[in-house]
């Protein structure tokens, strides 16, 4: 009787295991579709950018990039990133800190607001700033009277970029900070550390990988943003063109195809670099996690 009862769950288990496993042809078809899709739609176009950029050789490539207007676009893109990424790093940290460590009214509203830039179309984001600071906007007249230019100038581009890239750092940090809790910080306080020392020695090291991840994504978007920047920039060649805007202009007849692809290749390179760092960071965090898991398993087996 006992043997009969025991044998039943075993047969059930093998049946259920077989049930969840798909036939080999399903597996291979899915893998093939995925691979072919990635190859045709993702990898080939990217490779083509480099192919087109170098189609007329190194010297043409270099000449395209050192063209004063393209060079100005590269510089402007870097300036915008250098301003907006650190600002969003600080904003993101502050917002994530507030959400993860404090209880307050309107917390869920804050979380929703942080996500707003992801929900709004970039063109609309740009338009919002035009409506605020443009000549016909609410502050337009006042700004003009005081001779301050925001729209069709660098400040507008920076503002639009900050808006569009705002969620990246906060989004990455909130779950990490929530998982860590605030006990370690409290422990640091009981040991005599000031708020700043606690942040520097305890909080920051524990979120550093999440922070780095958020920053590189933020940077990639800051350099690559087209829609919002396009609306506020005014497309003044040599003054308010960023790299993505310059690529479009060159391609649409204000320059050669090679020049367009040369500038585009820089953006593509940035993308590859970002992916590389992202993969490395993910591998790092995964490894730290695995080590912790293994250590726990070792301890359990010791006991």
């Amino acid at each position, binding site marked *: 009787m006992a043997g009969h009862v025991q044998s039943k769950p075993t047969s059930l288990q093998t049946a259920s295991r077989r049930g969840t496993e798909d036939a080999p042809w399903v597996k291979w078809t899915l893998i093939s579709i995925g691979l072919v899709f990635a190859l045709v739609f993702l990898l080939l176009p990217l490779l083509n950018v480099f192919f087109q950029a170098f189609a007329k050789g190194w010297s043409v490539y270099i000449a395209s990039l050192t063209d004063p207007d393209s060079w100005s676009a590269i510089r402007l893109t870097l300036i915008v990133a250098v301003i907006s990424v650190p600002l969003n790093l600080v904003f993101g940290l502050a917002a994530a800190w507030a959400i993860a460590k404090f209880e307050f009214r309107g917390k869920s509203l804050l979380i929703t607001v942080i996500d707003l830039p992801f929900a709004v179309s970039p063109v609309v984001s740009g338009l919002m700033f035009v409506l605020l600071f443009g000549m016909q906007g609410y502050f337009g007249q006042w700004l003009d009277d005081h001779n301050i230019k925001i729209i069709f100038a660098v400040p507008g581009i920076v503002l639009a970029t900050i808006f569009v890239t705002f969620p990246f750092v906060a989004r990455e940090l909130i779950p990490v900070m929530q998982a860590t809790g605030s006990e370690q910080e409290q422990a640091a306080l*009981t040991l005599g550390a000031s708020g700043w020392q606690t942040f520097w020695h305890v909080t920051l*090291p524990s979120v550093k990988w999440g922070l780095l991840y958020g920053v590189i994504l933020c940077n990639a978007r800051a350099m690559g943003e087209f829609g919002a920047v396009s609306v506020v920039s005014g497309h003044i060649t040599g003054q308010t063109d960023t790299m993505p805007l310059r690529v479009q202009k060159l391609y649409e007849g204000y320059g050669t195809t090679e020049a367009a692809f040369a500038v585009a290749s820089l953006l593509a390179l940035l993308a590859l670099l970002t992916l590389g760092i992202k993969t490395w960071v993910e591998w790092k965090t995964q490894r730290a996690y695995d080590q912790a898991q293994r250590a726990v398993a070792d301890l359990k087996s010791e006991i």
Partner: protein
Amino acid sequence: MSIEVKNVSKAFGNVAAVNKVNFSVKEGELMALLGPSGGGKTTVLRMIAGLEMPTEGDIFIRGVRVNDISVQKRNIGFVFQNYALFKTMNVFKNIAFGLKIKKWKRADIAGRVEELLKLLGLEGLEKRYPHQLSGGQRQRVAIARALASKPSVLLLDEPFGAVDAKIRQELREWLVHLHKDLNVTTLFVTHDQEEAMEVSDRIVIFSKGNLEQIGAPREVYEQPANEFVARFIGVMNVLEVEVQNGVGRVAELEFPVPTHPDGKKMLIGFRPYAVQISTDLAQYRYRAVLVRTYFLGIMLRLELELPSGLVLRSRITKEEYALLGLSDGREISLQIRQYRVLSSEASGLPPELHTTYELPPTIGEHI
């Protein structure tokens, strides 16, 4: 006095977590804050540390009022329930953290950390990270870290809550020894009455934000101040009696309580060991049937049912059980040698009437 808590209350919004609490801890004492969860004991500990601010009342550490002194400047050592070790730092850096913050010299830090590693039996683990340590080791690192800059008091929140029951016993004994070696004033929070009884010099008992009793383990066990303490500490028979002509009655039981007014209801409590039994049915006043025996190692707990259906609990040793030739279903006679009047909210008795009454010893009794 090392710590004095005077009239301290704490409210979270409209919820009163701690209600006008008064107690003090002597220099070098090992004291437990005991109570069920939600009793306010952890809040009291955190207020002493400076992690929470009292809504009213004063807290003194070594005679200095610390209400307005920040947590950083109170010079306390705090051990969190889940230890809160810095997971990005190894054992050495965890222990050295407070010393580095206080700008100790490098050589002094190394010396102090080494001393603590030795004291807490953590030698050889200084390079390990918290996730590479066992629960017991983590706790010892947390204690070492809290002790590093020689705090005036050591505060521990549920120090044995996060470890296996098996290791817990060892850790209790270890804490007692550590406290003896260091002689630092220690206050710890626990919900386990056995733990509090075993480890501490004195116990403060909380329930629902109120302080119920302060006393040595033996004191709170033998002279519980009220019904809550009586029921919370150990096992107690608690009966509601009505007083008539100086005698409290319930079912067939009578408890002489000479100084109490007639017509009042009150609670009488007695420990299982105070219920004496005999197989000689003529020896004691009441008859009862042994309905069930619980084996608790060297002691046995007996459930005794009186003819009225009232059930009392008694406790005897294995030897006595064998000597009496007891078995479930057997009829016995019993008496209650010692009992105590417990106050209850309903009775509202003044404290001087919480007397313990004892019957005169009789000849040939079994204890």
